[in-house]
């Protein structure tokens, strides 16, 4: 066999080169996502649940009967004990989480499966509102939001509660109202961006009575960012002792800039002779207003005894008030 001559060799080389180029062109392009991320997304797609539509929980026909106690949200025994004492099982459970804590999806799922809407109060002790608004903690917020999205059940969420008070780092003495509202909107936007749709956003000021000079509107992020307005107020031995005087001024001020429904997001009656009367007043006040969705009882002995069983008369009064058909419903079938 004769060896290829010059031009023929060149032609063969060119053909071999073009074949080689064509073969290498057949190689798949570099993946646009990491294999791990693609595998996770594929897994999510295959095991996806139908998204939970929380809208029926936003304005239910009946009132929420909520409770906060030590050990929440993990402990379940106090719920049973509370239900036995109160004669009615609560359908909302409030608990507190520090800024930086991960979202505990399994625990919240257990709360929901137990018939209570989890109500997370997020306390930004470790970052200022301005830092949060400027994006310092975006990675944490996104991770938290992803976990909430994958949890795929309702969650009421209050960021920086009692912001109009001066006793917390995010309160009026250390944080500008504009920064607080900006931080709120930023968190909300990141949650939306991550697809965390099942959050009921609870903007939760303290009643204005102890801080009459602090206006609420500058702290308000806007109706597009809030579902409920969760007012915090206690029947203490000193101060207002009726629903109208305790919550009325705050609700009146809020109604000047928002029509969102109220939740009494934290309340209790300090142990004393008038406690049974004030318990009845609280329930009557909530029942009387269609725009108040319910109440959350602070069932702790902290600084004072706020528990329903601080005395037999108080317990009886609570039992009687909670027995009203207006309070309590199955949050899983609203």
């Amino acid at each position, binding site marked *: 066999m004769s060896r290829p001559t010059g031009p023929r060799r060149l032609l063969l080389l060119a053909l071999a080169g073009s074949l080689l180029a064509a073969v290498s062109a057949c190689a798949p392009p570099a993946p646009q996502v990491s294999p791990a991320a693609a595998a996770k997304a594929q897994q999510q797609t295959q095991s996806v649940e139908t*998204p939970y539509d929380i809208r029926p929980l936003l304005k239910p026909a009946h009132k929420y009967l909520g409770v906060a106690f030590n050990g929440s949200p993990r402990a379940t025994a106090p719920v049973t004990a509370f239900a036995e004492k109160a004669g009615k099982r609560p359908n909302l459970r409030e608990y507190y989480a520090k800024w930086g804590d991960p979202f505990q999806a399994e625990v919240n799922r257990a709360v929901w499966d137990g018939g209570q809407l989890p109500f997370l109060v997020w306390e930004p002790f470790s970052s200022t509102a301005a830092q949060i608004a400027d994006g310092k903690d975006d990675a944490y917020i996104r991770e938290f939001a992803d976990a909430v999205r994958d949890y795929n059940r309702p969650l009421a969420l209050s960021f920086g509660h009692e912001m109009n008070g001066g006793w917390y780092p995010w309160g009026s003495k250390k944080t500008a109202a504009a920064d607080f509202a900006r931080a709120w909107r930023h968190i909300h936007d990141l949650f*939306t961006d991550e697809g965390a749709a099942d959050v009921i956003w609870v903007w939760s000021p303290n009643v204005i009575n102890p801080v009459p000079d602090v206006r609420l509107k500058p702290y308000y992020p806007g109706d597009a960012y809030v579902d409920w307005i969760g007012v915090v107020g206690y029947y203490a031995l000193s101060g207002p002792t009726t629903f109208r005087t305790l919550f009325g001024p705050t609700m009146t001020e809020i109604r000047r800039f928002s029509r969102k429904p109220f939740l009494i997001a934290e309340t209790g009656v300090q142990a004393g002779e008038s406690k049974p009367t004030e318990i009845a007043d609280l329930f009557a006040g909530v029942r009387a207003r269609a725009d108040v969705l319910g109440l959350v009882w602070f069932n702790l002995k902290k600084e004072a005894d706020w528990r329903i069983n601080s005395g037999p008369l108080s317990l009886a009064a609570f039992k009687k008030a909670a027995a009203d058909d207006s309070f309590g419903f199955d949050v899983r079938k609203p």
Partner: protein
Amino acid sequence: MERNDSTMQLPVARPKTRSRVAETMQLRVLRPRRSGYALPPAPDSGWSAAPSSRRARVSRLVLLALLLMQTALSLRLQNTAFEDEALYLFAGHAELGHLLHGTKLYGGFESYFSGAPVLYPVLAAAVDSVFGLAGARALSLACMLGCTSLLYAMTRRLFNERAGLCAAGVFAIAQSTAFMGNFATYDALALFLLALAAWIVVRTADSHPLLTLLAAPVAALAVAVKYASALYLPTVVLLCVLTAYQRRGLPRALARGVLLAVVTAVLLGAGLYASGYLAAIQSTTTARAAGTTPSWTILRDCARWGGLAVAVALLGAFSYVRSGRMSEMPGWRGALPGARWRAALGLLLVGTALLAPAYQLHLHTEVSLHKHIGYGLFFAAPLAGVGVTRLMGAHFKYPQWAIFLGVVLLSSGMSQAYDNFHAWPDSRALVAALRPHVDAHGTYLADTYEVPVYALGRDTSYRRWNSTYTIDYTSRSGRHLTGAAGFKAAVAERHFTLIVLDRGNPTGQSTTVRDALIHSTGYRLIGTVPYATAWGSSRFELWAPS
């Protein structure tokens, strides 16, 4: 095997003494011989270049195996309906309703479809009514199997069986073939009709010119099914001229080509006049909006999706121009076409493979490029078949080349087809999420509304759905709004019962709509549906009045 009629008589000596047993055998088993053996003459070769029934049978068996492999390669691709499939199918159902029951049409399909809405969509919808999406896709598979068979038949006539089988093999394992074989759009049917037209002109090259004219309605129908098929009509006409020239000379060949072109043009003109689809043809095909995809990206993907097959075709064309001898029979003396004719055929077939990429480069768009490459590949495949046979050499001297090419083409074709078939999300989770929110009375907005409209066709109507591309909205104050202003007003006035946005593939005014939703008090995000495609992961967002 070729045999000679003449035989040669050889004298054989008889045994002088025979045993009793041998005599019995002679009587009972062996035929009595008259005067010795009659041996046929030894031929020059153990086989022949001439056609034979055995060769045809073996070739058809190999072709059948290739078709089975092609079927498997197509059917291994599994995904829910792509938006184009969903669009053509629900449009076909609407057209069927119009044709059978006089139901009023609202889609304006004829104004933006890239093929006649009364042809493929109606056919596919009729199949879909009985067999569902799998049936409509099976129709495409049948068309693509038909393409491969016609390719074999055409290549066999142009060259020989071996080249035909190699061409069919190259075509059958290409990503575009596997993809279109399980994809319920115009493409498979249009390509089948083009293939049929090409085969007719080759098959009737030495027949009466009127028989060649059978290709005219087929080619016209291919264009009607998918307007872009017109890009390949010149190839069919030139193929007609070239194949006829070989047997009839230039004047007759030219006359035949002109006749075919004129009749096809008349048919197309008549169809255009009767249908009034000119505007749609302009908007979807001839004056299609230019994209922004860089030329380098288009070239790279062209090389990935069809580069190797076209390179082999180029090799085949060069080799064929150098030597037109297709037989490896020693001493074969057949009539060979001239070098210029061979060069013209090579240029025509390989050049056709470059038409679609060139047009898409001109438009700077990659839309459907992975399918359109398959059109050109059909025409380049005969020479790719020649290329493979030449690489293998006479008597399969270098089979490693064919094995190498087969392995590379098959593996790349499989992985590319898989990627392209999973370029869109599996919509089952989305449809399940939408079902509780969709009824016959709601008003819906969606990025890719075609998929839910098709999947939820029993619960809703396409008339209730709006894409994010255009809107014609009259606000409560009576203002008539379009574009971004229309979408913003519709969101502000809570016009839509449900809005579905695709974060991974926002279309039209999707971003404007989302911005309006985020700052709206009238809507809230009620859920997300994650998805993963071959290119990444993202999610659908469901927004509903709060």
